[in-house]
């Protein structure tokens, strides 16, 4: 037994890079979280936003997803893309992080810098990342108004997102919170928990929204 442990230690020591640099978050990940559950129990919706959320939820119950631009092949946007039943590949370089999502080949680009750059509002927003050991921090601003989740919870163009993730010690789980700050939609900042599990190495299939049936699009809401 001792010999086996010694051998395993030697092999790991020989193979693992002798670096104290940042941990590698890259790989293929699958979202575990589909529905937003706020930390603390309630979502502090302002009255107008509450009315929109209720109308969307009522439509969804009827099977009417007209409120959801994904059904017209627009991008899911942030943070919704991280709650979609679709795997994504996380790529990591010294200067940037990237995600490539299977659903409709959408992607995020997240420079590892301290300040946001210039740019127009977009579905994925302007994101900047930082890494501290096994923790990954991403701040996103300049988002166009859209949906936070498949239930139709709205957000405005004033949304600021803060993602804080921690990689588990076995490297198989990425979990943490997404903080929502949007004074046009919510009376106070709030957060919800999210997690992702690592998938075995594989290639993402080519997924083209305009080639999907409505049933396939509904499954990817």
């Amino acid at each position, binding site marked *: 037994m001792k010999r086996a442990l010694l051998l*395993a230690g030697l*092999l*790991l020591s*020989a*193979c*693992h*890079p002798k*670096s104290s*640099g*940042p*941990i*590698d*978050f*890259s*790989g293929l990940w699958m979202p575990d979280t589909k529905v937003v559950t706020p930390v603390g129990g309630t979502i502090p919706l302002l009255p107008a936003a509450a009315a929109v959320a209720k109308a969307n939820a009522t439509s969804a119950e009827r099977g009417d997803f007209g409120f959801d631009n994904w059904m*017209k*092949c*627009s*991008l899911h946007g942030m943070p919704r893309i991280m709650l979609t039943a679709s795997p994504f590949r996380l*790529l*990591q*370089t*010294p*200067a*940037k992080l*990237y995600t*490539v999502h299977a659903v*409709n*080949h*959408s*992607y995020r*680009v997240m420079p590892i810098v301290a300040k946001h*750059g210039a*740019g*127009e509002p*977009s*579905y*994925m927003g302007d994101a900047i990342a930082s890494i501290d050991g096994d923790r990954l921090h991403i701040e996103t601003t300049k988002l166009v108004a859209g949906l936070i989740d498949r239930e139709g919870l709205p957000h405005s163009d004033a949304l600021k997102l803060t993602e804080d993730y921690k990689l588990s010690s*076995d*490297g*198989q789980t990425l979990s943490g919170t997404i903080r929502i700050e949007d004074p046009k939609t919510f009376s106070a900042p709030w957060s919800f928990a999210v997690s992702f599990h690592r998938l075995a190495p594989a*290639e*993402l299939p*080519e997924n*083209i*929204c*305009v*080639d999907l049936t409505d049933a396939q699009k509904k499954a990817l809401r």
Partner: protein
Amino acid sequence: MINIGTIGITDWKRRRSLGCLAVLLLAGASTAPPRTVLHPRLSRTWNIIGYDLQFRPISGDAPFTPAGKAIFERRLAAYDKGTLEQEPPNQCRPHGVPRIMMSPYPFEIVDTGDRVTIFHEVAHNVRSILMNQPHPANVPLTYLGNSVGHWEGETLVVDTIRLRPETWIDEAGKPHSDKLHVVERMTPSVDGKTLDVRIRIEDPVYYTRPWETQRSFKTDATLKIAEYVCEDGLGAAADFFK
């Protein structure tokens, strides 16, 4: 297909790498990311220099077969008459290869060692190029095909097959079949400011012999890709092309 024997990794190094990979996977550990950009002159954001609807052969005319010539002339005539034929990008499908390399929108090349990813601004096309391995067997036909690559010095050589025949070689309408085989040689200049891409096209259905074309790209520190959501214009595009 690339010749794996030419990639410059000796057998013992390959065996050691595979052994280490197995150990790390079994241990559930992840390797550290590269601490420096592996190919800094290529790993940048690039924009095309000039624009031309056609990929023109470096020498001579495109060696069409009669069937290839008939399709190309039909598409050119439709273009001249203003009655464009549909091609996949008109309806927000991926452009295809090499068609995507003539887009007037920038793209970012990201080298992460075992994979090179090209993020195109236009219609959020993403190409994924697996390095130092042969094409897998039985891959389906896709709009962007199956790409594998290797480095020859600072030149990235990308080999692509299994492309859906609905895509066009170029915007003018050169056709290809599902037998298309594309080899791109992407070479950055010594000063890192320009990129030369040589493209070899082989398709025995529509061309009598392989032929080569070329594009050049430029970069600067301020260039970055933006979000381009083709799908938000679908209604207008459908009206235009119906």
